[in-house]
């Protein structure tokens, strides 16, 4: 596995939660949104084990309902526990990413550095 996909794997839960927080999505939409923001390394199928795990841990819930195009789809939304978890993950990501950016980018102008 490449370094990039290993890094991604660790933070994928957070990314999935972040997309779901913005709007109600079903699996295919979710994978398209992840690719749209530039996470093209995430192979589409990987979201299903993630979705199952998040459901099992009570962070998201899925409800079957008709989609715009007609057929039933399972739409996901965050639970209160999921909102909490997303806050924690974002906070921790900030704490890790800011110093790492500073270190690896060696003072190049980054919008995060203040």
């Amino acid at each position: 596995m490449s370094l990039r996909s290993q890094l991604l794997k660790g933070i994928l839960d957070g990314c999935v939660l972040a997309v779901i927080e913005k709007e109600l999505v079903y699996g295919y939409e979710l994978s398209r949104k992840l690719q749209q923001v530039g996470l093209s390394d995430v192979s589409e199928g990987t979201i299903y084990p993630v979705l199952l795990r998040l459901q099992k841990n009570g962070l998201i819930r899925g409800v079957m309902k008709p989609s715009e195009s007609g057929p039933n789809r399972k739409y996901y939304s965050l639970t209160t526990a999921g909102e909490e978890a997303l806050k924690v993950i974002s906070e921790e990501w900030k704490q890790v990413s800011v110093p790492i950016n500073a270190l690896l980018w060696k003072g190049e102008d980054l919008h995060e550095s203040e």
Partner: protein
Amino acid sequence: MKANELIEQNNQKRELLTEENEMYYSKLLMYIRTKLSLSEQQSEEVLMEMLDHLLEGQDEGKSAREIFGDDPKGYADEIIEQLPTEEKRDMVKFLGQLSFNLMGWFLVIRGFTLLLFSIFVDVSDTVYILPTIIILGLIALSVSFGVKVILGLIHQSLFNEKSSEKKDMLKAGLYGAGSFAIILAANYFIREFGPSFEFPWTASLGSGGMLLLISWLMKRKVL
């Protein structure tokens, strides 16, 4: 949507897949379905999501391999690891439905056999309670183990290049023949003893039909 409706829909939607995608997806499906300990409802829901995803991807020219990766077994194992196990209550329901079904067929066949034979020869319709319980117990045991053995064989061989179909067929066949022999032997050697009652073909047919109806209703989740 209930599991049996999802299965029905899955069967219809699978026909829309290209041959290559169908091969890939069906292996995933068999691999997950033959893992009996998993929640049926949850398994069918995620299988449906994956199928919908594959169909949408297929419209955009993507293959199952591109969507789910080059390692279908590894991928399916990841899914299985995250799926919840079946709740005890549902397991009991399933086993109950299965045993009603088996008993039902047993009684219906017995009824017809008695009716047919009584035309030509004088057959006794006396049932000895204890020996009958022993034989039925043996049948139930061998059927439930048989289901486990055969599904286990399928589960193992799906992604195993080395496993030979012939060998698996032989194993399943030997199992079937073995358990059949045991049941026949038990039938032959166990003496008629203990309390007994008359159980004519009409009653056998009637009660068997009732059990089959109950089992059918349970399967449709009416009961």
